[in-house]
């Protein structure tokens, strides 16, 4: 073997090592982001469940009129029971029903315990933050996965592409 051939082999090995390192680095990066999407969704999901529970509690206020009761209770119930496909629409409906309650808090003041209303305000603010954090992670994953290297080497494996729901855009 000549000296120059050795040089070439050496170079190829180096390049292969660099590529391997880069791929593993990228895969870890993506994996970390996937993980963040999952945890931020879990957090958001928990908050949304909490919101639905508060909505039902508000609906059960003894002095509330039955029409408001029916509207709130069915929106909250649908949000809690919704399948993945219906979830976004159900959460949207609940958001709208609740923001109506908040905007009419002056009229409803007598019927709803103030502590419940302030709890609602707090949870709505938390949800807004959680949605933004979640969407950021979703966007980062989507951006990364659209890159050529990630597509060629299938670095995402079998992980499903995270979704952006329209109810999140309404809140964020």
């Amino acid at each position, binding site marked *: 073997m000549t000296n120059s051939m050795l040089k070439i082999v050496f170079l190829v090995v180096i390049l292969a090592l660099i590529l391997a390192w880069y791929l593993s680095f990228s895969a870890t990066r993506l994996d970390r982001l996937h993980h963040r999407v999952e945890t931020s969704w879990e957090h958001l999901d928990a908050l949304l469940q909490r919101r639905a529970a508060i909505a039902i509690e508000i609906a059960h206020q003894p002095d509330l009129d039955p*029409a*408001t009761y029916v509207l709130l209770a069915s929106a909250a119930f649908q949000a809690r029971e919704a399948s993945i496909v219906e979830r976004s629409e159900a959460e949207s409906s609940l958001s709208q029903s609740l923001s109506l309650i908040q905007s009419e808090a002056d009229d409803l003041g007598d019927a709803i315990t103030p502590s419940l209303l302030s709890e609602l305000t707090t949870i709505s603010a938390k949800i807004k933050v959680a949605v933004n954090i979640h969407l950021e992670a979703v966007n980062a994953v989507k951006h990364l996965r659209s890159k050529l290297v990630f597509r060629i080497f299938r670095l995402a494996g079998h992980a499903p592409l995270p979704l952006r729901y329209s109810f999140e855009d309404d809140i964020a």
Partner: protein
Amino acid sequence: MNKKLKIGMVCPYGWDTPGGVQIHIKELAEYFINQGHDVSVFAPVTDDSNIQESWLVSAGRPVAIPFNGAVARISFGPLASSRVRQWIANGDFDLLHLHEPAIPSLSLLACWASEGPMVATFHAASPKQKAIYAIGPILEPVLEKLTARIAVSEMARQTLKDHFETEAVVIPNGINSTKLHEAEPNPIWQSGRTIGFIGRFTEPRKGLSVLLEAMPIVAKAFPDVQLLIAGPGDSDEVKKVFPPSIAERTKFLGRLSEEEKASFFKSVEIYIAPNTGGESFGIILAEAMAAGTPIVASDIPAFSDLLVSGEYGALFDSENSKDLAKILIELLRDQNRRQELSARALEYSEKFDWQTVAEQIMSVYELALVGNDGVKLGSENRMWNRRRLQ
């Protein structure tokens, strides 16, 4: 009954937005007023300057809110609640007629607030909602107060039965047969063999896409076939998906007035209703029948009920455009069958004329009035609240 009644009717949806329930209430109120009864209709109103009816009392502006998957314009909350009570207190009604009291709006509030003879009409038909487990226990005690229940169709009756396990008398929606029957055809809608469609064509459940797939086959058999589409919606948007051979055979007429609609029915050769679902009654078919227009409709339960399994109009296998094309071609070929369908349907449609329908409703009123002396505000709303807390 000779006694003149004081009737309070409640509409749950915004009065100045178009809808079947609003039209039903308007025509029923007008009929009873012509009979000499005193009617007051209570409804949410977006813009008071839209209101011409002297008998309408506004409940204030409705809010648009999603409920059960569709946006509804309804009124609720403490303000609406107190307006309902005020209207009832001032009205001194013999009887209340509440429309759609299971919708979270004025009818439900009225039912909650009053005591005495109350009749309710249920219009909607839907598959059983899961949310009913959450709201059923609240609605049931309120709806229990209704003296009598009416459903506008077999489907609506079934919906009521599934949700609240209560029975209802079926009395159909009403139409003005005479007006429809006496309308004159409009020659500009009569060039070639015309097929008419009315409805919000952008909504998928109205089934325009099924018809579009069938049209090229029909056009092959009858080169002079024309498609007339009436109803609100963006026609440019829809036209994009038209096969070119059909686009040139199609006219969009926009929204028709009641008079134009009557003349439309008189002009077209066949009226087509390709709806894929979501109908409770199908008033448009009753109107086409009264005008004597031969009908082709999908065999969804509401239409199959209304047309008595094809007795009064040809049915095709819903969402099957090949079957639709076949039925259309057969009917366009066979003038005798068209005349026969038209004559039979015309006679049958008497059943839906206000003359018949309103009298049926009046007999339900009479039943509800037995042993009752007028509508009062309930005194035990508090008790209802306590029951809810248990």
